[in-house]
């Protein structure tokens, strides 16, 4: 059974160290997103990368629309992977929606996790006036779904010819194999809806594992107010403001991302 999970979630293990660090990608991409960050932990940790079911090179047949219509379903993937590798005392690094997914997993099995690192997290993306500003209106999320639909029309026709028309350039085919997004539009759409329409503010007080909130500057997806809300309401959390701008510091500012994670783990006496 563990082999099934490792295949299902396209789990990749590297590095050496007594403790495991698990990197979880956010919506829209797969484990490749950690390409510039994960290797920096290989000397001290067992580095675990995986794709959620429906993303990257996971087994699409395992995608159950009902299960993955809640973030708990995705948290199930995290727990499955940790159990399949018999991990404990895990340092979990989750980007964006994976921050909440990791939190939900840690609420279910606190014993499995040592620390949570939340990169650009948000417990709720949609505004809930008058007291909560997540940054988006429902109509904005519709706008995103519309853009995704339109691009999937394009991608289907844009991805296909690359393989067939470039036999003399095998690296292109290889690149495609490592295709960075889920190419099944229904699955991607479901992940988008689950991500951006979930409200997990009520789960924050249930946190049992200490965590680091990494707040980016000028992040349109997880704005400063959301980070402040989290740091007020998430027990055991430490707040770090990054200089990195945007929502993907692990891609745009990998050095700072690595440094801040390492500083936190060091300060917490974890290595």
């Amino acid at each position, binding site marked *: 059974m563990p082999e099934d999970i490792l295949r299902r979630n396209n789990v990749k293990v590297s590095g050496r160290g007594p403790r495991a660090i698990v990197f979880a990608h*956010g*919506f*829209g*991409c797969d484990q*490749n*997103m950690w*390409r510039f960050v994960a290797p920096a932990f290989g000397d001290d940790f067992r580095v675990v990368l995986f794709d959620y079911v429906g993303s990257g090179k996971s087994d699409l047949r395992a995608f159950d629309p009902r299960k993955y219509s809640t973030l708990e379903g995705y948290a199930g993937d995290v727990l499955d992977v940790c159990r399949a590798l018999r991990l404990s005392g895990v340092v979990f690094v989750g980007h*964006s929606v994976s921050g909440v997914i990791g939190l939900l997993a840690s609420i279910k099995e606190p014993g499995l996790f040592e620390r949570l690192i939340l990169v650009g997290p948000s417990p709720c993306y949609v505004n809930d006036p008058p007291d909560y500003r997540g*940054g*988006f*209106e429902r109509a*904005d*999320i*519709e*706008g*995103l*779904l*519309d*853009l*995704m*639909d*339109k*691009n999937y*029309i*394009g*991608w289907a026709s*844009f991805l296909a010819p690359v393989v067939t028309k470039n036999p003399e350039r095998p690296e292109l085919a290889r*690149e495609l194999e490592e295709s*960075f*997004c889920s190419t099944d539009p229904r699955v991607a759409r479901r992940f988008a809806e689950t991500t*951006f329409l979930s409200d997990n503010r009520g789960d924050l007080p249930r946190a049992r594992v200490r965590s680091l909130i990494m707040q980016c500057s*000028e992040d*349109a*997806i997880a704005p400063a107010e959301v980070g402040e809300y989290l740091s007020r309401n998430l027990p055991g959390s430490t707040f770090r403001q990054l200089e*990195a*701008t*945007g*929502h*993907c510091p692990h*891609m*745009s*500012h990998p050095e700072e991302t690595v440094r801040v994670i390492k500083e936190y783990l060091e300060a917490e006496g974890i290595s």
Partner: protein
Amino acid sequence: MDELLDNAPCGFLAFADDGAILAVNATLLGWLGRDACDLLGRHVEALFQPGGRIFYQTHFFPLLRLHGRAEEIYLSLLGAGGEDVPVLVNAARRERGGSQVNDCVFVPMRQRRRFEDEILSAKREAEEANRAKDALIEELSTPVITVWQGVLLGPVVGSLGRERADLMTAALLRAVVARQARVVILDVTGARRMDADAVNHLTRAAAAVRLMGAECVLTGIGADVARTLVRAGTELTGTQVRRTLADGLALAMRFISTNGHL
């Protein structure tokens, strides 16, 4: 900026990895109704609608960063009056002046968008129709009929695949509980092509029914099903078998009237 590029019949924009806009041509500024000083140095997200900002962060930038290029990406820019300016984008990463720069070329696509909107809405309608059809088939494919107080009939019509067998078993078990059934007749008279897999599904359904405390009677078994059963060496212990539905019904009635002796 080169005069040719500045006024070329396409939008041009360059931004750094941190999102800061480094250059923008006059054509693009014209479409967006902006001044260069409005945009230079600002985050490229300022060009998009809110949904587009998510798309930029979750799809466009990662694609560009990981693959070094992005082609034919559909984006929607924010016009001066807040209106949508639909564009297709090609982008490439390059090193310039010691740092990475992302160059983007935009082509407006108002006409094409109308066309694509129509395709999409047709696609959504087709998906909706498909869903409705699936729901209807699911409903029709797993009927459970109460033929007498305590006697249920599950007719199997068509082919019995794994998914359908699961649905049928679930519907039967629900009905056994809800209608307090004591006998379930599984009639395969109308079943098409009962291969070893289908027979397997059937015997599992029968076993599940028995576990719920009801008797199971299998009827309508033709010569080919009998052969499959023998070939597969399937054990039907505990399941009564009758050739016709009428025989099965008679057996069920006897069971009810004698209070549980088959």
